[in-house]
């Protein structure tokens, strides 16, 4: 049982990494990855929102939608849940850390429409996970997202000072870096 959960955790963090293997939620990946510090802030917000979304959407699906045969409302219901959670997170961050709030800027509300978050909610259902599984899977996915985001931010911080051909300065080099990082994550394939 525990081994099964561990495998699920590792596979969601490394093998099926949302950013670098499933290519979901690329918008904040490119948007908030200029500084490690803001990437960390974003990561914490995403971990919170994703895990909570995973749990709440699972409960909603199993105990409300499914018994009533309303599975077709899945996406709408999940989006409402995500939007609420994001709003809530935004208020908390605004209160607790105005600097982080400024740094995250538009990307915080954008978690609402982040396909990675909706992806977690929908995949939990599709894969037929139980409650514990889906908590672990949601958390693992979010940690994987954060792991990729923060390491990429570290790369971009160094890229900013690297001597790069003029035509590749800025965004092009960032995209190439993302591609290489994705290739590196490809190496985890077959681990689980």
């Amino acid at each position: 049982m525990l081994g099964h959960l561990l495998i699920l955790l590792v596979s969601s963090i490394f093998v099926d990494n949302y950013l670098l293997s499933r290519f979901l939620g690329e918008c904040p990946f490119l948007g908030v990855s200029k500084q490690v510090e803001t990437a960390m802030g974003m990561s914490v917000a995403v971990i919170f929102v994703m895990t909570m979304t995973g749990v709440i959407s699972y409960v909603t699906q199993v105990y409300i939608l499914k018994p009533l045969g309303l599975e077709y409302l899945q996406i709408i219901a999940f989006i409402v849940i995500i939007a609420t959670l994001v709003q809530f997170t935004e208020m908390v961050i605004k209160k607790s850390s105005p600097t982080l709030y400024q740094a995250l800027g538009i990307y915080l509300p954008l978690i609402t429409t982040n396909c990675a978050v909706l992806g977690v909610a929908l995949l939990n259902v599709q894969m037929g996970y139980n409650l514990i599984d889906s908590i672990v899977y949601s958390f693992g996915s979010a940690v994987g997202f954060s792991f990729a985001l923060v390491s990429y931010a570290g790369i971009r911080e160094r890229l900013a000072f690297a001597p790069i051909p003029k035509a590749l300065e800025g965004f092009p080099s960032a995209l190439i870096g993302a591609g290489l990082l994705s290739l590196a994550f490809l190496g985890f394939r077959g681990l689980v």
Partner: protein
Amino acid sequence: MRDILYPLAILGGMGFLFGAILAYASQKFHVEVNPKQQEVRDVLPGANCGGCGFASCDAYAQAAAEGKAGTNRCVVGGRAVAEKVAAIMGTEVVEVTKKTARVICKGTNDNAVKKYKYHGIEDCRAANALAGGDKDCQYGCLGLGTCEKVCPFDAIHVTSEGIAQCDEEKCTGCGACVDACPKDVIKLIDINKRVSVFCNNHDKGKRVRQICGVGCIACGICVRQCPENVIAIDNDLAVINYDGCTNCGACIPKCPQRTISNLDEIISEVAVF
């Protein structure tokens, strides 16, 4: 009937529940905002042009309300807004010096030598990526109108002679073109200072003569002519320190390359766009 009522009840119920949670949370996590900040924000134009040096009108309103920024920073609003902001802050009205964008290049198609024919995207930044653009001069206006495209006020245009020129009446000094220009050939200059060195070239004089008919060759004649001593040669380019410039124009007739001009003359010289 059930098919309609159940979804309605479920989604409606979820909406109500979440709405209630958020309403409670917004009370609980309410952040106090300086009331003056909102007042200042209300009198600002809201164009978020960045002409004040802040990222947005909100950022400026915050700084002004905290007394960290002057009340006269909004160039778009001009004196009218400065008066209102000063009234809110309870301070004296300070005059707004209007700055406008000025393209400091005269390298028109006739004047500047080209090193190749550019047939790429109509964008200075794209052309600049190809060996610094089609002009031999590495510092001059490329005339492909990137500034024209980014200008939110339709104030800067590329003339028929192939360089950009700013319409000072429409220009608000927001600096969007200054940021977009890959050559840094557009400067924000006080609108009352009419005399400028219309060249951005830091090459040695001999090289300038080869590639441009009107480039600054750093001969230094203007430096000696200036009664106020505000012109200096900086890296083979004459630069006017506008703080002391009186628009006397003593430097203009002696300039062998006719690089220095009074802006009013240029405006009357150049054909309408």
